[in-house]
């Protein structure tokens, strides 16, 4: 019996060596097949948050998935494990002659610039950072305007007059969330107190949970997070507290997070049109109208705003107030600070 087991293991070994040999052959076939495809190829490089961050990396990828289905483009993503990976990941697409390479997140700004300079023929696009190269299209958002509106919601609905903000890291993008939110809260409720906290990371749910716990303990009943995957921890803490009978809220970010975490904890979400932007720019490549440059999407351009499902938890009168402020911001009557 023992011998049989041994022999079989040895055969498996030998078999695998043979198979490994076959593998190479297959590879040459596969790369031969790739060339025949003629449709547009789009690549996407996530930041360290990864493609399942339930936030903006995911929104971006979903847009490409949609285009893959509807327009038959080839879309691929690469997740970055660390900052070292950004350049090789971007280059993987660029050197493979992809028609467009997306970098998602402020963190990739420098590296997009490097790659764009080294490959002037490649087309690149980036979310959340401005890269001043002729072959890069940069999309940024007026997060402060959207955050102002959710600030109005938080200010109007807090029972303790205390609300909190959890940020990922103190970078300009997140700073816009912070100051916009604060301004919105104070506009709706001058008595309210806003506590600002930064987790220092976008990929640390445990820290998000710890921060949320201390903020809730301090009497804040509504938290707004702008922290990518770290925010998952904020939501989990809120879910735990709601289960034990203490009503607290989280305001989601980037996409409608009530779909992910449920209406019980998600008061509303500040939706950032990452999907829309990715969709739009990618379509420009498909149509051949892609141009380098930069654009900022705000309330006016429908780049930011409240999630459509907000009416579930936010009462009519508050939504009306939000709409008022929105019009005032669009008309320029209210200027939302950016830093």
């Amino acid at each position, binding site marked *: 019996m023992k*011998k049989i087991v*041994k*022999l079989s*293991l*040895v055969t*498996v*070994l030998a078999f*695998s*060596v043979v*198979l*490994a040999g*076959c*593998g*190479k052959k*297959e*590879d040459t076939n*596969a*790369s031969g097949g790739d060339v025949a495809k003629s449709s547009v190829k789009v690549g996407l490089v996530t930041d*360290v948050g990864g493609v399942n961050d339930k936030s903006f990396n995911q929104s971006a990828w979903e847009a490409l998935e949609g285009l893959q289905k509807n327009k038959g483009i080839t879309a*691929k993503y*690469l*997740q970055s*494990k*660390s*900052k*070292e*990976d950004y*350049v*090789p*990941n971007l*280059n*993987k697409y660029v*050197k493979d002659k992809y028609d467009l390479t997306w970098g998602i997140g402020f*963190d990739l700004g*420098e590296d997009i610039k490097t790659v764009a300079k*080294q490959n002037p023929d490649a087309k690149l696009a980036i979310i959340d950072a401005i890269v001043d190269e002729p072959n890069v299209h940069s999309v940024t958002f007026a997060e402060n305007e959207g955050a102002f509106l959710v600030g109005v919601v938080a200010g109007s609905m807090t029972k303790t007059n205390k609300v909190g903000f959890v940020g990922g*890291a103190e*970078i*300009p993008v997140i*700073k816009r969330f912070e100051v916009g939110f604060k301004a919105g809260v104070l506009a709706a409720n001058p008595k309210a107190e806003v506590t600002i906290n930064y987790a*220092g*990371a*976008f*990929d*640390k749910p445990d820290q998000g949970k710890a921060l949320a716990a201390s903020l809730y303990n301090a009497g804040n009943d509504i938290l707004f997070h702008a922290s990518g995957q770290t925010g998952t921890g904020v939501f989990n803490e809120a879910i735990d507290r709601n289960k034990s009978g203490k009503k607290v809220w989280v305001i989601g970010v980037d996409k409608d997070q009530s779909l992910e975490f449920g209406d019980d904890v998600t008061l509303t979400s500040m939706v950032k049109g990452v999907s829309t932007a990715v969709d739009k720019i990618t379509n420009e490549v498909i149509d051949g109208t892609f141009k380098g440059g930069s654009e900022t999407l705000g309330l006016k351009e429908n780049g930011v705003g409240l999630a459509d499902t907000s009416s579930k938890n936010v009462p009519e009168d508050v939504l009306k107030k939000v709409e008022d402020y929105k019009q005032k911001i669009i008309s320029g009557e209210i200027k939302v600070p950016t830093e």
Partner: protein
Amino acid sequence: MNKFFKIFSFNSLVVPLVAILFGLIVGAIIMLIGGYNPLLAYSSLFSTVFGNLYDFGEAIREITPLIMTGLAVAFAFRTGLFNIGAEGQYIIGMTAASVVGIKVTGLPIVVHAVVAIIAGGVAGGLWAGITGYLKAKRGVNEVIISIMLNWTALYFSNYIVRNFLLIKGQQRSEDIQDTASISIGWLSTMFSDARMHWGTLIAVLAAVFFYIFMWKSKQGYELRAVGHNGDAAKYAGMNVKKNIIKAMFISGVFAGLGGAFQVLGVFHNQALFTGSPGVGFDGIAVALIGMNHPFGILLSAILFGTLTYGSAGMSFGADVPPEIIRIVIGSIIFFIAAQGIVRWVLKPFYLKRKKEKVL
């Protein structure tokens, strides 16, 4: 030449090779269960790394710090110490190199880089020296201290970067002076802009130094003696405490140099860490696969770096999640640690060979 091959005796060569093979098979089985094509995955892994010069160069970039942290861990292992703090020493090495690279000005081109490298190495060594000192003088377990020092190093270097080196509104430091760069411009151009640097050469030299120092010098003999049996070494008149501190210092220098190369040759600036980079921990695995031998470490770092770097290609070419490669690496380490399994499988071969000899 004969001597060279003697280093790779049966155990040190065959066992790792079979373990690697087993690891790849385990990975393949898991891919099959997950509904992926393991052949396509592995072939795209290797064709990523060896398919074009750019990726080949970047893979070398990935391998270099692994050699250094692998050497760091192995050096301590050889002297009976478990330096789990290579991570912290690596980070401190990065930070010291950044500080010297950014703040020191006016040095000529080669000198500045050398000074920055030395600063990184010495800083890493001193950081590990803390562990060595506490172990030697107070008898505190080096594992616990060095783990704790990893976190201290992480937040300490974030503090330094945030307060002294940061560009306002960014998450990273200023760029180092051009004079401190150890990038090799012409080689990078040759490798279509892959980030090549002198650190790779130094890493190979460091492995040679490790070998000569450990096995050909009196100091190395003392270090090994202390590692084998501290009491016996003490009886023989060796200063055990001094040797422990020395061993940790040298171990830390290796890791610190690895960090310095990363700043001076790859990034040219230092970003705020949101989490531990993990290179030091990977060094433990590299040391284990390399059987704690410097030349084994060169090979295992190449393997580890190839697998890690190629994992991106694997998800690119075969849509296999890169985490699978961690499973492969994990199983390789498992089979190396559990050598009994490997020997047991190989036994039939050797039985046969013996019989043939008898006939």
